[in-house]
């Protein structure tokens, strides 16, 4: 009971971060700030979701695989963010100044 409650709480928290990230992606003014929303909020959201699923995992191996997926995604999204940002900079897109 306690385990599933904790799992639900983590999953909901993860979903909230995803929602915030998506909102940022849609509402932020330029490519750099949007990247910020994507790489930070969504990665944290996925981390919380993975944690929520890990407490429910049947075995240590399954939990390890979930953690591994999160680490891989961190590496991939950090690289993708870097690539998009340096492409934008190469194009001469100036960062937004409110």
């Amino acid at each position: 009971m306690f385990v599933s409650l904790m799992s639900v709480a983590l999953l909901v928290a993860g979903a909230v971060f995803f929602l915030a990230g998506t909102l940022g992606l849609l509402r932020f003014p330029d490519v750099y700030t949007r990247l910020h929303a994507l790489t930070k909020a969504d990665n944290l959201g996925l981390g919380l979701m993975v944690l929520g699923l890990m407490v429910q995992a049947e075995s240590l191996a399954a939990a390890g695989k979930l953690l591994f997926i999160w680490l891989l995604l961190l590496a991939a999204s950090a690289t993708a963010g870097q690539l998009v940002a340096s492409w934008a900079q190469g194009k001469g897109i100036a960062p937004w100044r409110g």
Partner: protein
Amino acid sequence: MSLLPLAIDLVLALTLLWLAWRALNSPDLFRAVVLFIALGLVLGLVWVRLDAVDIALAEIALGAGVTGALLLAALAKLQPAASQTDELQTAELQTAELQTDQAAVMAPIALRLFIALLLLAFLAGLGFAVWQLWVPAPGLSNLVEARLDESGVAYPVTAVLLNFRGYDTLLELAVLLLALIGVWSLSTAPHLGDEEPEPALAALSRLLAPLMILVAAYLVWVGAYAPGGAFQAGSVLGAAGVLLRLSGWRLSLSATGWPLRLVLVLGVAVFAFIGLAVIGFDQPLLGYPPGWAKPAILAIELAATLSIGAILAALFIGGRP
């Protein structure tokens, strides 16, 4: 029965249709390709909802991943000058191209309407046929279930792919090879410039490439009793090849001759050899002798994985080395 799963599935199905419509009708080609990749990813979710985990793996790696990379690479070759000019010019260029595009890109409106009506009639007929077919039927699953013990593997989809319907898989490997021969006969591989790749990308591919090879090996092995197998593993290998290529890695010249070609044909060659060799043991073509199914399937899957990975990467590079 709760209504929530059905609601989720309805949302997924509508998302699919909306993405497909936008991907096919978006005026900007780049946007169209990106929407198409998104369609592949949502489709992967749909396969999970349909309990088809193998297909989901293949769809994400191939339908979204490799196809997306192929489309983006082709798009980059179509618009080579656009990246050099500065932003303003590019925008002007694109609007000019767009206007000519709009005039000549689509069929006239009357013809479009006629085609749409014709297609609606066709879809109504197809829908009726599907409706007629929609009676609960086990299909061939009972037959597969009954003979699974003889197949050499414990997972039905792998049994169908490599034993019961081995013909399909053999010919499919041949189709892959034929496609590559077609691509190779159309062009030679573009020369890779000497510019330094992005340091972050280079670091990521150094990190991921060995990991992807490990995952591919795991997928082949796990295919004997769970979702996985040569196709998924080969797709992961192919994706590793695409990643390495993007970060500027290249095969050494000594390996692009017959060693590369050997790897490319290995899958078809091993499959055909085993399929023919069994005739010597009083078996029909592609029928494994009792007790030999498992090693035969493992050998074929390993060879096929290597070939599928190499062929997919070669298709992405596009052109004879």
